[in-house]
């Protein structure tokens, strides 16, 4: 698809908006539909769009496979880490009330942290799976 001008320009224009929308969905998930799962998938879709239009190699130079693999693991660590932090602060595992003096603020921080973990994992997993499927093409045919 490298010669299609409209597709290339369209993708270039759309991608930043998709990424911004993904982050909006993540951080506004407390007030409206959205959250880590959706945001991770939307960000991964932006990467997939760019990779389909500009080729896998160009995208992999920016978002390296190593980075997305690390993301997939890091998200689980963030999620579990929030639980460990609340335990260190003397509450139950994942008991967010420990994170601030006001339990509501604590819940808020805890949810944001946990959703961040979900976002990072889902993004990493989806993009690395996509890379694996797309990157195998050259070798089998």
């Amino acid at each position, binding site marked *: 698809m490298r010669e299609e001008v409209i597709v290339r320009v369209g993708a270039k224009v759309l991608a930043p908006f998709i990424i911004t929308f993904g982050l909006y969905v993540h951080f506004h998930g407390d007030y409206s539909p959205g959250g880590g799962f*959706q945001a991770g*998938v939307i960000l991964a879709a932006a990467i997939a769009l760019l990779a389909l239009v500009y080729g896998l190699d160009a995208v992999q130079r920016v978002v390296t496979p190593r980075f997305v693999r690390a993301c997939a693991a890091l*998200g689980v660590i963030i999620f579990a880490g929030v639980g460990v932090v609340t335990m260190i602060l003397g509450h139950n595992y994942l008991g967010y009330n420990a994170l601030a003096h006001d339990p509501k603020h604590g819940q808020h921080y805890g949810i944001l942290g946990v959703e961040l973990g979900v976002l990072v994992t889902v993004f990493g997993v989806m993009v*690395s799976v996509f890379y694996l*499927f797309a990157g195998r093409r050259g070798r089998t045919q």
Partner: protein
Amino acid sequence: MLLTLLAAAGLALLKVRNLFAVVMLAGIYSLLSAGLFTVMDAVDVAFTEAAVGAGISTVLFLGALALCGHHENKPGHTPLLPLVVVLLTGGALVWGTMDMPGFGDPANPIHHHVADHYLEESYSEIGIPNVVTSVLASYRGYDTMGETTVVFAAAVGVMILLAGRLGRRPRPEGKGGSG
């Protein structure tokens, strides 16, 4: 009505033998079901279904088709036995629904176990308006953590399967997959 459209899309999926068309129809099916989820008040679910079903999963299926070829052979054996099995199972399930409470009745038992607590108390306990998020991340935090781990484990499985022996890439990043 959306449900009837969905049934039509499902039947088309059954008939079509070109796998590219099947994947596109599956995308349409996902989008229709996302519309149905919106109608049934599950906006978060609709959002996820639209992004996952119509977005990522279509791309993954196309990637797999590019590797596997997109023609499906005619089914070799007679479809009679599967049909009988399916009809029997379907009949049993329909029989089972006779005992189910009617669609959309607020008095259904499902709405009076923990849902009342989530809807009435979650704002004073958690302090965020989207009940789905507060149940997802706080009341059922363990659940979500397990699911995140499952997603991660699935990715590890795909890496083991696809980045193995054949997958020794010319680029240096491929080295992580050989282990």
